[in-house]
């Protein structure tokens, strides 16, 4: 798979249209790597001139900041900003709502001012610009429910872009009782992804999976690699992995378009 880096681009004297910020999960997590590849396939299909930072990319510092380590966050942010500004990056797209939020909202006052898009917003733009079509026959008739990532939804009030894309797949979108601004967290945010939960009577991802299962879905669609992990684990816990798939919207589009 051809994934150009900013260093390559610079060596050739080119400036890509957009930087794809892959994020730690998208780079290292086996499940999330599939989302990164699906998104790259879509970028290729739409002939988007993009590049990644590759080995020059580093943690945005989001998890450190939410853990309370403002020092580490700002160190990461300033190093990344130095790299991004060095390449004169203007436009960034990412499949990770945590990176999206941090880059978009928390980098500007530290000197990193970019146009930042979540991949669902970016794909939506590709469609409206006539650069991409979604085949609405491949997945026709499937029941799909969408789990709003907190850092895309409540944190940045992006509720419609992912839903618009799901509707274009020709599937039946069914909402959970808690959706959009009242959506329940998957349990991974605020650095919970990296630690055991405090004692309680249930795990949050199990409660959220129950919300999703109430809609009797064939597919639980997500827009965040961490939500994807949590919901996948929830489905395993409920022993429903034979009936219910957990997929990122990028994966669904790549599948619909036979990429």
């Amino acid at each position: 798979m051809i994934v150009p880096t900013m260093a390559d681009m610079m060596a050739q004297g080119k400036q890509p249209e957009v930087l794809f910020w892959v994020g730690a999960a998208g780079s290292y997590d086996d499940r999330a790597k599939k989302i990164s590849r699906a998104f790259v396939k879509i970028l290729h299909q739409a002939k988007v001139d993009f590049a990644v930072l590759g080995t020059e990319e580093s943690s945005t510092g989001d998890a450190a900041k939410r853990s309370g380590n403002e020092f580490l966050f700002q160190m990461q942010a300033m190093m990344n900003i130095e790299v991004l500004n060095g390449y004169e990056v203007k436009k960034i797209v990412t499949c990770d709502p945590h990176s999206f939020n941090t880059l978009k909202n928390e980098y500007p006052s530290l000197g990193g001012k970019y146009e930042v898009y979540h991949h669902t917003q970016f794909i939506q733009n590709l469609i409206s610009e006539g650069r991409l079509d979604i085949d609405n026959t491949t997945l026709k008739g499937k029941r799909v429910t969408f789990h709003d990532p907190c850092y895309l939804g409540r944190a940045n009030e992006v509720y419609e872009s992912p839903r618009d894309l799901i509707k274009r797949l020709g599937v039946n979108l069914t909402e959970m009782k808690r959706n959009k601004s009242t959506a329940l967290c998957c349990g991974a945010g605020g650095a919970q992804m990296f630690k055991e939960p405090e004692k309680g009577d249930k795990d949050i991802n199990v409660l959220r999976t129950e919300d999703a299962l109430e809609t009797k879905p064939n597919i639980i669609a997500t827009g965040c690699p961490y939500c994807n992990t949590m919901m996948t684990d929830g489905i395993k816990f409920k022993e429903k992995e034979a009936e219910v798939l957990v997929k990122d919207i990028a994966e669904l589009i790549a599948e619909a378009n036979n990429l």
Partner: protein
Amino acid sequence: MQYLPNLFFALALIAGIGFFVMNIRKLSRNIKLGKDVNRTDKKPERLKNMLMIALGQSKMVKRPLSGFLHIVVYVGFIIINIEVLEIIIDGLFGTHRVFKGLLGDGFYGFLIGTFEILATLVFVAVVIFWLRRNASNIKRFLSKEMKGWPKNDGNNILYFEMVLMSLFLIMNAADIHFQEAGVGNTISKFIVPLFDGFSAETLHTIERTSWWIHILGILVFLNYLYYSKHLHILLAFPNTYFANLNPKGQFNNLESVTTEVKLMMDPDADPYAAPAEGAEEAVPEKFGASDVADLNWVQLLNAYTCTKCGRCTSSCPANLTGKELSPRKIMMDTRDRLEEVGRNIDANKGVFVDDGKQLLNDYISPEELWACTSCNACVEECPVNIDPLSIIMDMRRYLVMEESAAPQELNMMMTNIENNGAPWQYNQQDRLNWANEE
């Protein structure tokens, strides 16, 4: 002698309002113990928020039943207060229903008739509220932080309102001239039969007694506010005005940290340089918050504004799954501690004397703080834009940056970020391997 009631009324009014003002000054002083934060930008947007959310109750109705009942009580409360103005003028000048002459019988009757209907609706709504709190199984009213005073406080307010509304109706019912005129007695006329056979003198006594208890009750209620969750009827307005306007996902970047990080990353910086004149004082005492004075004044205003409705807690993923964290308790603890600090200052001639306690540990445990997913559900839910998450984050910052007291797994995660730029222990040189794995 004939001016004795007027005099007594004036004294009661001065005492009631005076004591209230004294407490409000204390409240304002306590809020100012918080750190400065600039919330005076974007005035039109702030004003709009206040008008929509506080005055217009736009977030209350997201839960339709309690939202509707709340609007009934709220509208009733505001409109019936026009009647209180008349009571005050009557009380001070010894007049009786002074607005009647000023406004004309017809319009006056229309107003009082409307007030009577509203008073009845408020009474009914308040009874339903009482039933919801005491005879229904609504989880957010039964949480453990709601035991004792918070529960009694909620009920006291409802009893106050029931009594005040009843007195208003009884007062009108026992007013012979008002009933004989028969204009505006929409509800009170149904109470009149209860007084069948009472002498004019007895009725007059009932009317006067109701009138006096009603106005004294209002003054007592006014002063109850300061000690109660009911402060929200006033503070909802500044609280929505000064609320955060940035996207909810945007957490503030600590400027004190930025200065230090810039220095660390500056290749020209001399690590052995003597600090500049006055720089010593510029270094903040601590990063993050362990006590109320480390929070900013908007967070402290939030604490006083919270009416403990529990919508935040009932939407908190951690609380819903049985964890210790309750965003409402974060706000209650912050207020309790702030009031404790305020009493300490009062008792020590205006200076805070260390009492060996702080918000962290003595009120809020690290276990509560670490259970938060930072999902913003509590912030979204709050009908008056309180931000419990910002307090949780500031306290986590203290735990991590001052005490190095993060859970072990988080320390490992942070070490990984420092060493290899990812929360997991992978080599940064492998960061693009995903592209070639299929």
